[in-house]
Each structure stands twice: as structure tokens, then as C-alpha cells.
């Protein structure tokens, strides 16, 4: 069915249905409901990589001990995701394919250097390609998933022992909100210095983004106030927020400045 390419894929429907109802998206001639495909389900660890099936719901992520203990940054983001009802229906694959610059799971997944697994069956044989998340996302609502491809899973390498991360989401209210900005930041303490520093942002650019210069400002450094400030200043040069109905670009910059500092302070236990 997918081979013909003119297909709308339905999983949880929590993005697809409101978007089509609002007229922002049109159904293609075929609506393909993948909800009951067992191969797209399940969370499992193999050789230091956690494979999360595309159909895994946000609630299932929250209920997973593996995710809570080993991918805690992702778990925190799920805890801020919409409402209970939406978390029961929404899938991680859908959140990835929707490719929103404010997507809640995208920010920690980017920080955790996840890659997506894309499957196609062009001539009867299954073809799989793995794409790092940073390359998968092209712009608001756009990804490099081909029309004949299905996002089958996302693979997340387990961070090293001692990795501590914090997710922060800013909205008008604690539940049922779309990020004004979001931050996922994590690092590992190696004696007095920081290692494996990962910083990602949501809602400050056309896609969720990493902040390599901010990470570099911390990597291998002692976590003191001056280093943190340098990292925050580096981050401000890496973001390109816009003004929209939720916030002005100015306010988004102020939030990144204030809250990245707060998140890093927690992560570095200053």
C-alpha cells in the first residue's frame, strides 16, 4: 500500500486529526492505519541501544522502567507532554514525523543522539535506513521521510553511567500546552570537569536544535559560574527564535538565557 506513495499514515491521530480538521493538512487518497502492526511496538535494549517502536505511546514511555532509569531526560519530557488522554493515544513515531520545532520528545531525543529507523518495501524486500535525528528533521512539519517510507522505530544509545539530564518546558500553564521554549541538557561529571555535555532546544529555530558551541564551552571544563555564563552566551548565538502568538523572539531569548542557566546549575549541581 505504502509503495504507491500517496498515503497518509495514521497512528495516534492526536496531531493528524486536528490538523486535517483545521484544514492545514489534507488526507491523501489512502489513509493507512498502522496502529495494530506489532513490529512497530515495544521498548527493548540491545547492546547499549534502546529501540523504541514507533507506536509506543507517551504513556508507555512514562510507564517504562528502562526509560525512566536509563533515558530519564526523555522520561521527563513525556511527563510534560500534553494531558493524560493525549498521552494515551499519541505515539513517539507520530511526534517525530510531525516534526514540530516545539515537539516535546524531539528535544531530549536530539540531546541523546537518537536516530530514526525508516523502513520501505520498494520491490517486495524490506529496506531499512537509519538517519540521525538531526538530519531527519528538515523544518517545521518537514522530515526526510520518503513518501514510501514508514518510521519504524527510534534508536537511542544509552548515555554513559553518571549522565544526569534535565528537561525544562516553558508554557503558560503546566498541562496541555505547546512549548514557548524547551531545553534538554545533560552531562557527566568526570572528577571536577564535565563530559558528554549535551544541550538541545525546542521552539527557538525551524527545527529542534543542538547547541554545539554551548556544549563546547562546557565540555572538559570545571562547572563554575563563569563557565556556565560563557555556555549560555554561546547558546544565545546559536538560536533563532521567532515572534508568534505564543511569545516574542525577545522573550524566548530571555527564557533561554535564564532557564538554560538554571537547568545547567541543576545538572552541574552548583
Amino acid at each position, binding site marked *: 500500500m505504502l509503495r504507491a506513495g500517496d498515503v497518509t499514515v495514521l497512528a495516534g491521530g492526536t496531531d493528524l486529526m486536528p490538523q486535517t480538521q483545521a484544514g492545514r493538512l489534507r488526507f491523501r487518497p489512502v489513509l493507512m492505519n498502522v496502529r495494530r502492526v506489532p513490529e512497530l511496538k515495544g521498548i527493548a535494549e540491545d547492546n547499549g541501544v534502546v529501540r523504541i517502536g514507533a507506536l509506543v505511546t507517551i504513556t508507555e514511555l512514562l510507564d517504562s522502567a528502562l526509560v525512566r532509569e536509563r533515558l530519564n531526560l526523555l522520561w521527563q519530557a513525556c511527563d510534560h507532554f500534553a494531558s493524560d488522554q493525549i498521552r494515551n493515544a499519541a505515539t513517539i513515531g507520530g511526534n517525530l514525523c510531525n516534526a514540530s520545532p516545539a515537539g516535546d520528545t524531539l528535544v531530549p531525543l536530539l540531546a541523546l543522539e537518537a536516530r530514526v529507523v525508516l523502513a520501505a518495501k520498494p520491490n517486495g524486500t524490506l529496506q531499512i535506513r537509519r538517519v540521525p535525528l538531526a538530519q531527519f528533521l528538515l523544518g517545521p512539519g518537514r522530515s526526510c521521510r520518503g513518501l514510501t517510507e514508514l518510521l519504524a522505530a527510534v534508536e537511542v544509545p544509552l548515555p554513559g553511567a553518571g549522565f544526569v539530564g534535565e528537561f525544562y518546558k516553558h508554557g503558560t*500553564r*503546566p498541562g496541555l500546552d505547546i512549548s514557548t521554549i524547551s531545553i534538554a541538557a545533560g552531562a557527566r561529571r568526570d572528577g571536577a570537569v564535565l563530559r558528554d555535555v549535551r544541550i538541545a532546544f525546542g521552539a527557538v529555530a525551524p527545527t529542534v536544535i543542538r547547541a554545539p558551541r554551548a556544549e563546547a564551552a562546557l565540555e572538559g571544563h570545571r562547572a563554575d559560574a563563569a563557565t556556565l555564563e560563557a555556555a549560555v552566551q554561546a547558546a544565545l548565538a546559536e538560536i533563532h527564535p521567532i515572534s508568534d502568538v505564543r511569545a516574542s523572539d525577545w522573550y524566548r531569548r530571555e527564557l533561554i538565557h535564564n532557564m538554560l542557566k538554571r537547568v545547567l546549575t541543576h545538572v552541574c549541581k552548583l
Partner: protein
Amino acid sequence: MNEPAKTWSVPDSLIGKRIPKMDAPDKASGRTRYIQDLEIPGALHGKILRSTRVHARILSIDTSAAKALAGVHAVITAADVPWQRPIGVGRDHLPLKADRVLSLRDEIAAVAADSEAIAEAALKLIRVVYEPLPVLATTIAASAPGAPRLHPDRPDNVAMTFDYAQGDLAQGEAESDVVVEDVFRLHYVTHCCMGVSGVIAEFDPSGNLLLYSNTQVPFLHKREFAELLGIDPGRIRIIQPPIGGGFGSKLDIYPFEPIAIFLAGITKRPVKLVFTREEEFIASPTRQPVLLKLRSGCRKDGTLTFRDVETVHDNGAYTSWGATTPFVMMQTISSLYRVPHCKYRTVAVYTNNPYAGSFRGYGNLQATFAVEAHMDKLAEAVGMDGLAFRLKNAQHPGEVTPQGMHFKSCGLKECLTTAAQRSDFLRKQAENRSRWNDPDPVKRGIGMASMLHVGGGAKIYPSDGCGTILKIDDFAHVTLITGASEIGQGSETVLAQLVCEELGLPMTAVTVVNNDTDITPWDVGVHASRTTFIAGNSAIGAARKAKRKILEAAAAKTGNRIDELGLAGGFITASSGEKLFELAKFLRSLHFSDKADLVMTSFYYEPPSRHQDKQFKGDVSAAYAWATQVCEIELDTETGIVRLLKVTGAHDVGRVLNRLGIEGQIEGGIVMGQGYALTEDLRVEAGVIRNPNFRDYKLVTAPEIPEMDISFIETMDGEGPQGAKGVGEAPAICIAAAVANAIHNATGTRITALPFAPENVYRALHGASEPPVWNAA
């Protein structure tokens, strides 16, 4: 059908007990049939084509393709109803716009079709050619010399003005030791009823009109629709299905209602027209946005001397009840506290924005926001604490204010002291202040505000009455037929309770009929916190008539005097408490005699109030409600997020009737006030609503609801039903004002513009906001 049990377990009195709402089981289990659920056989579905321009001339409308679509029964424009008349409070707009649109919601054409989908498809086939006109997006633009006239008979675009004065302002100023002045800006919010607007219109072959309608004012609407159609109001019947929220939004007549009637008349079929949620945001009314300048003064000892208020109301494109909110605003200005000299002036200016209707609190949220900010500011200036300053100027029972309001019962001082004590106000206020310079970016604040609102009906119309019919069957089951409308506020439960209290019956012994103008007696409508007071007194009147009749018959049998007999627990009792007759049995015996005249009628017109005169002086309500609310907040200075942690409220409610019901009203009102203060913001830019959806229009959700500590001050109003006053609007009124004072207590910054959304607060704290400036028309 089960015959009632022989003995009923009824507590001594139902007053003050916790009585579940009679409609709760149906609503909780999804059985309630709202207008959306009503399927009338043969009904067509109506849809409205709205303007895509904010201000434009309509050059042409081509409906031919829509008419040709299969399943379409009618496509109408103004040309099809040349006899239509202007509607609404201001009688200033036609249901279907003929040659010009003045706002984005404006109705241009309408379709009746076999299904909603066909009606939607037909709308897309209608071609409208516009010639754009300059958009008057602000009151300043609309007041500028040479601005285009939005209504031909209003050369200056002024929709309405109000001028009120008491005392001598110059004298008040001269006597003042301190004078403060601020400009306040109040924003657009909308009701967000969970049940969207809708109507079903149907004519019978004789031309009688049946409307299924969510209106809050069925009897007044009969007259308006009759005027519009040129028929006798007696030929119109309005049935109200269970209404999914009103909050004042359904007090006026709106274009969709006549349009459904037009479609029903032309197609000779029932027509059902129900809004989408987006349509509800775009085409239902808003709370009145206001720019308000307030000057206030006091003496060194804290005595208020004067208030001088000017406001500009953005009226939007048409005049509905929103324009008349100054009636209530000036009451708060002149009479919430004792102030000898007052001046109040409002200009409501037509613009191309959405137009405002009535909304729970009716201007009082806006006025209280300004007045209570100045109560804090003046107190600080003279070195008094906010509580002592308010107590010094508080009204007391018996006061007749210069505006003419007579406070026969008044618990304001008890409200102030109770709320302050229970919240530990003064200690926390001092403690929060001492932490302004702490390094912790998260601050705490506490703030207080009080309110005054009508609580015994409101003389807005020539009469404020309500009628009741009460019948008792031969099983002692009571049918209470009342003019009062139920909009989710719990009126049917409290009315049944008042009747049961008189007749000594349990709540299960009453059925309430309250939704059909062919059956129910006249009532002025559900508004102004009036239903418990007015309809309650009316219901009590009918129950007392019935009681007297029953006891007279019993007395004739036993030889007692009727004052020696009573009704309790389903029995006719002697003063000793002895059960003389089982009521049901006794009534059956009456029904088999010729004395079974057990249908009562009664009415209640609130007596001792008087209309405002031309100078807006008068005593408009039989009783007034009071409240003080203290809000405690946490404010993160690095994000601007304000969290409402706790509300301590003390409400003068006269007397608690249904404790569960009044708690629900107050909790719901607090949450509505919280939304107004913190999150809700209908973003209107150049006449366009940017967020017509629940994703970007932020209602308060469950995790944000604060802890609440509510005290009831029972002043036992002499005229109230069992001593009660109306309380429907009161709880929403103070919150924004109290939160503003709490933000000041947390940070030292006074913000005079709503809402306190994170970016707005953050900007104010960091000197990056544009505080409101006065630019009077």
C-alpha cells in the same frame, strides 16, 4: 412507578445542607441531551458564511453555484429578507449584512442543507467581491477626525456615553493629602461555554414559531423575535434544552438566531444551526475591553476623599450589553467604599473589532481591578496597612450611598477581617516584602480585594419579576413550574430545596419544569445573580400557599388552629411533633373531595428598589452581596510565571441555602477570575482574532486550580429567600485585582494591564513593557 415510601427521612431543615444538583447524574453519565443532541425529524442543517474582511463594502454576492449543489435547500442573503430589521441591544445591525461588513464575524449569507457537510461545501461555493475600507482597529483610530463612520447615524463613532457625578470633585481634591493616578488596560476574554451556541427553528403550518434555544432570556426574546418577524409574540414558543453554560453570553439576540428562523421560514422545514468551536470564538460576544484612568485621593488619616474615573470602551462593531457595563462599574466606583466625591465618565467607541456582550460580573471585574489597586496604593502612601485602610472606608449596614444604594444588610467588614485572619494576611504581607532583595528568583506575594455586586435582583428592565406555578399530586409529589432558567448554576435544585423546606418533603418529591415558555410563568431571565433571590422568593410564595391550604383542610378535620399544625417528614404534624396524617394519604382524600384545589400560582416582584434616574442615582437591587478575596501567589522573576497558590475568600451571601451548590458557584467563579487574571487572552489584532481555539486561548486547567478556603458570612438579609442573597457573579470579580496586589507585594512592581501572562509580567518586571497610557477619545 413506585409509590413513595410511607415514611421519609427528612432532616429538620434542608437549609445549609449539602444537596447534590438534580441534573448531576444525567450530566455526569452523559445522558443529558443538549441542543447538539436534539434530532428533529426532517430538520435541515444551517451554516453561515461570514466575512473574510474586517471592514469592506460588499460589491457582489454570487450564490448560484451554492444553490445548484445537490442537497442544498436554500441559500439566502440580505436580498432574500428585505424586511429584516436591525437587532441587538443597540438595534444597530442586520442579521444578514447588506452592503457593508464591519467586522470579521459579519454574516453575509446562509445555507440550509440536508447535512452539515453539504452546507459547509455550499458555503465554499459562494463568491463575495469586496472593496476594502480602512480598518478602525483601535478606539484612537475610530475617534480620529475624518475617521470613516461605521454607522451612518453616529458621525463621531460614539456608541454610548455615561456621565455620573456625586459631591464636588474640586472640594474632594482640595481636602486630599494624597492623590494617586494610574491608567489601567483591561483585555478581551470570552465566555468559553462548553456548550457552543445553537438554535433550532421550526414553523408550523399556521405560522407559529417554535425555537429550541440556549437563551438566558426566553420571555424577552419572544418579544424581540416577534418584532423582527412582525408577528404576535404569543405565536412564539421557546424551549430551552439543557444549556451548557451561559455566563451572560446568551442575554442578547445574535444574528444566527434570526438567520435560522429565516431559513426555516423559507424552506418550511426545521433548521438546526449550531456553531463550531472556532465560530464560537469568532462570533460570540466578549468581555468589554476597557482603558480606564483613575485618580483617587485620601486624607492623612486614611479617609477617602474623591475618585475621578474616565474610561474608553472598545465597543466593537455593534452595540450589545457590553456597552452598558458602566451601570455596574460606577456602582463599584461610588459605593464599594465610602467616598464622598465622585465623577465617572465612559465613552464607548465603535471600532471594527469583535463586539462585547455581558459576562459574569458585568464590568465589575474591570472597575474593581482599578479601585482595589488604588486602595493599596493610597494605604501605602499614608502609612496604613491595606486591611486597616479598607476597614476605615468600608460600608456598613444601613448605609445609603450618595448614588442611592441602600445597604440593608452588609457584611463587608466581616468579610475583610475574616479573609485577613484566615489567610494570615498582615504577617505574610510583611514577610513577602522583606524578601524583595533575596537572591531567590521565585517570590511570594499576597494581595486582597473586595467587591460589591447586586444580590437581590437588578432593576434593569421595567420589572424584575418571576412567576411560579406549583401543583401537588395525590401522592404528595410536587411539580414546581418556574419562569427561572437553569444554565448549569443549580437554580432548579435550590428552588426545589426551598419548596421542600416549606412542605416538609424530601428533594425526591419535587420535579422542576423550567424550560418552556408555553408552560412556565413569566420571568425576566437569568442574569444579575438574581435567580435564587427572585425565583426563590416566588417559589417560597407558592409553597406557602400550598402549605396553608393543606393545613386549613387538616385543621377543619382535627379542630386545631392552623398555627398549631405543621408539615414535616411527609406528615401533617401537631405542635407537639405528633404525626397526625400521612401527607400523601391526606392529599388523596382531598383529591376525592371537592376541595382538591392544589395548583398554586404566585409571583415575586422585588419590592423596595428603585430605578436609576437620569443621573444614574437609585437603589437598583433589594440586596447587595459583598466579598473579600485574598490571593497568594508564587512569581518566578526569571520567567514571569505567576502561580495562584491559594484563595482565601469571605463572602456575604446572606445565608447558605445549598452548601454544595454555593461552594460550586464560588469555586467556579474563582477559576473564571483566575483565567481572566492569568491566562485567558483573546488576541485581537487589526480586527482579527489570532487564537480562536483552545490550544492558544488558555483556559485554566485542573493542576492550576488553587487551594481555596471559603468562609460564608451569613447576614440573613431581611428580604432574601430564607435570608439568602445572589452570589452567581461575586466570586469572579476580585481575583484579578487581588492578584495584581499580590504581584506588587511579591516584587514591588505594580502592573496595571491584564492579563498577567508570563511574557507580560516578565516585561513589566524588566522594564520592557509598554504600560497603558491615556489617550482619551
